[in-house]
């Protein structure tokens, strides 16, 4: 058989999932004043280094919301701190996070106790002790699979602690929760006077509060 492949009419370019060398990032004005070193500033990524890291926990079933594990991504030697944050002002950590399959959910808080996924009506916030609202804002393993992570986090020096609360759903005595991280370490260099074109091209990184208007 002789076959002539027709010339494609268009091609699809899938952009990389992670920031690359030469990319621009801009930190919006909603960053708190404690982050004056990056707030409303634009940076060029000079170097990147992807660091894979797996975290795992074996937890019992959550018993009406009274048993759970908090994973604190901030730095320190606390029992639940994982020390994933950068220590340098010129570093930005872009983190991809995925879960291996399992019988559990995760809730997200920044800082501790302040949920990222509230609704607007009173009491419509995630609550593990409530049979319905424990699913409000809950991220399940299928939402961000280990091999195709969809949850992306941005960490800078001295960011308020970001907490991932892990809760094993009823139906199993224990579950192993495996969290796969890819920490994309980005070395940033400030662009003192970015052009309009640079600002348009820059990836805007907003503070977590923008999710809670």
């Amino acid at each position: 058989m002789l076959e002539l492949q027709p010339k494609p009419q268009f091609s699809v370019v899938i952009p990389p999932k992670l920031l690359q060398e030469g990319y621009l990032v801009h930190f919006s004005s909603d960053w708190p004043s404690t982050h004056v070193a990056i707030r409303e500033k634009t940076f060029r990524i000079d170097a990147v280094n992807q660091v894979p890291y797996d975290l795992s926990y074996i937890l019992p079933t959550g018993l009406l919301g009274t048993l759970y594990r908090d994973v604190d991504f901030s730095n320190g030697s606390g029992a639940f701190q994982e020390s994933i944050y950068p220590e340098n002002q010129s570093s930005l950590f872009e983190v991809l996070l995925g879960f291996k399959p399992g019988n559990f959910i995760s809730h997200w808080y920044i800082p501790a106790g302040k949920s990222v996924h509230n609704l607007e009506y009173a009491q419509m916030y995630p609550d593990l002790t409530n049979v319905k609202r424990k699913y409000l804002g809950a991220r399940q393993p299928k939402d961000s699979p280990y091999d195709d992570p969809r949850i992306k986090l941005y960490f800078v020096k001295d960011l308020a602690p970001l907490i991932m609360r892990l809760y094993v759903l009823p139906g199993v005595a224990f579950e192993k929760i495996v969290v796969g991280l890819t920490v994309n370490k980005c070395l940033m260099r400030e662009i003192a006077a970015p052009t309009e074109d640079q600002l348009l091209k820059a990836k805007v990184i907003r503070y977590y509060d923008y999710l809670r208007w």
Partner: protein
Amino acid sequence: MPSIVVTADDEAVDVAAERENAVVLAKSLTIDNQGGITDRVITLQDVFTPSNYYGAPTPIVDQDIERFRALVVAGDIITWGEEDLKGVKCLGAMQVLSTVADAALDHCYVTVGYEHE
């Protein structure tokens, strides 16, 4: 897929060590009690220590959970395939335990195929 043959005993025998970022799945299992003179119950045990968590007891108690159980009469050999073992998952180490001790003229061999996933 790795596999291992162990001699069943009334003290648990290691099959697969715990791997922190994976579970152990049983993929195939053969219990050969042809050299045995006693009926035995063979179990697959899941042995692990839970992580620290809010509401955890002090100290945290080690767990030893039965994940699979079968009675194999003396002189018999039974095989289970991947489909039969679907859902047999160990969070920690996988071990084999027998209700009867290994003895000079009473042997039972267990072949386990497994994967860390």
